[in-house]
């Protein structure tokens, strides 16, 4: 357990210490969302209707930014080889990475989402549902992202490959994420979508460390 926490602490320290990664992420998230009103025109009703989708797309794209730094620097400086020989199983190290990835590239977005809600003219109930759906759904995005990054780490210049690989996996997350905010047929459907989102996150977060560990082992050989 201490090794797991040490890995988590190391990942967080490397992300936090002064490289402005989180600031870049936040600006990207807000700018992506803020550009939409310019593109579709200042139609308040239309904006309010598509706002959930915009928030989710912005969150999805922003979370792709951090994928490259999940395994690539570790591979380049030899740390990944040492992880494979560590006493702590590789899957536990990767589980810590999934959590760190969520804390540094999803949590800041959720905290910043009020800005986007303001820009997109969301009403207050929709805003709260957005926060809830992001909280329940982004762990799945972090898990799929980690998996994609692990598959592509052995490929030189595989940077854009991971997003392409995981995009299909993330489709259900987007569908139910938006479904939980903007129910088409009454409130019952929204809670069902939330439950489904939570299930997706639970399954993907619990399985992705093992899948990613396998991918790293095979990729390196």
């Amino acid at each position, binding site marked *: 357990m201490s*090794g797991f926490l040490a890995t988590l602490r190391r990942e967080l320290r490397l992300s936090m210490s002064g490289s402005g990664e989180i600031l870049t992420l936040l600006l990207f998230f807000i700018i992506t969302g803020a550009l939409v009103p310019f593109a579709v025109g200042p139609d308040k009703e239309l904006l309010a209707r598509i706002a959930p989708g915009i928030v989710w797309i912005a969150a999805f794209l922003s979370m792709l930014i951090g994928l490259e730094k999940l395994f690539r620097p570790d591979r380049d*400086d*030899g740390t990944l*080889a*040492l992880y494979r*020989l*560590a*006493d*702590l199983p590789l899957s536990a190290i990767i589980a810590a990475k999934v959590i760190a990835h969520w804390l540094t590239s999803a949590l800041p977005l959720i905290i910043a989402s009020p800005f986007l809600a303001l820009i997109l003219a969301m009403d207050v109930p929709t805003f709260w549902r957005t926060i809830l759906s992001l909280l329940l759904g982004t762990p799945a995005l972090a898990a799929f992202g980690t998996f994609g990054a692990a598959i592509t780490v052995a490929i030189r210049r595989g940077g854009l490959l991971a997003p392409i690989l995981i995009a299909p996996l993330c489709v259900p997350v987007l569908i139910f994420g938006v479904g939980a905010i903007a129910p088409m047929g009454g409130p019952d459907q929204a809670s069902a979508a939330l439950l489904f989102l939570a299930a997706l996150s639970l399954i993907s977060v619990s399985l992705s460390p093992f899948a990613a560990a396998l991918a790293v082992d095979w990729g390196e*050989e």
Partner: protein
Amino acid sequence: MTTGQTRSQLFVEIEHLACGRGENVLVRDLSLRLEAGNGLLLRGPNGSGKSTLLLTLAGLLPPISGKIGFPGHDAETGPVLHYCGHRNGIRPRLTVAETLSFWAAINGAYGLTTAEALAKVGLAKAAKLDAGYLSAGQQRRLALARLLVSPRPLWLLDEPTAALDTQGHELVAGLIAEHLAQGGLAIIATHDDIAVPSLSTLTLGGTA
């Protein structure tokens, strides 16, 4: 020490091993047996397969054919080997002490304490420094300190003296001698002379 007892029965057993990178076979039909307390120097020109052999022994590359075994190793006591390669696994923005305690945390901190290990490799004064500021030789020393905080019976060292000064060479020789004296094993790829008396030598690349 209980780990000392298990170590004294440990062997490295290599049978008809062939290893290489992809289609390129570098080492063919290698068989050897190394007993606890012994070290092996791998020699040979650049590209003769020293590093590849070490990576294969470490389990980081799959062997092309043949078997590698560690009879006498009790898996309960943790991983059998340390691999110390060209790349030191050191990341800027973490201090020297943080880097080492991280390795101690994930490899098991049952050896020297972080401070003792740093003192031993001559980095005591640099403990609070950003590891990115270390020179190549100091980074190598930090990488070697990793072997001291989490004792494991077999050391696989790939050019451990690279970038080290004269005292550094002596340090490496001293660490290896001490490790072997405690019943450890070491396989070392190097171009330098490492002044440890009981090392045997295997030269690669004569026929490759």
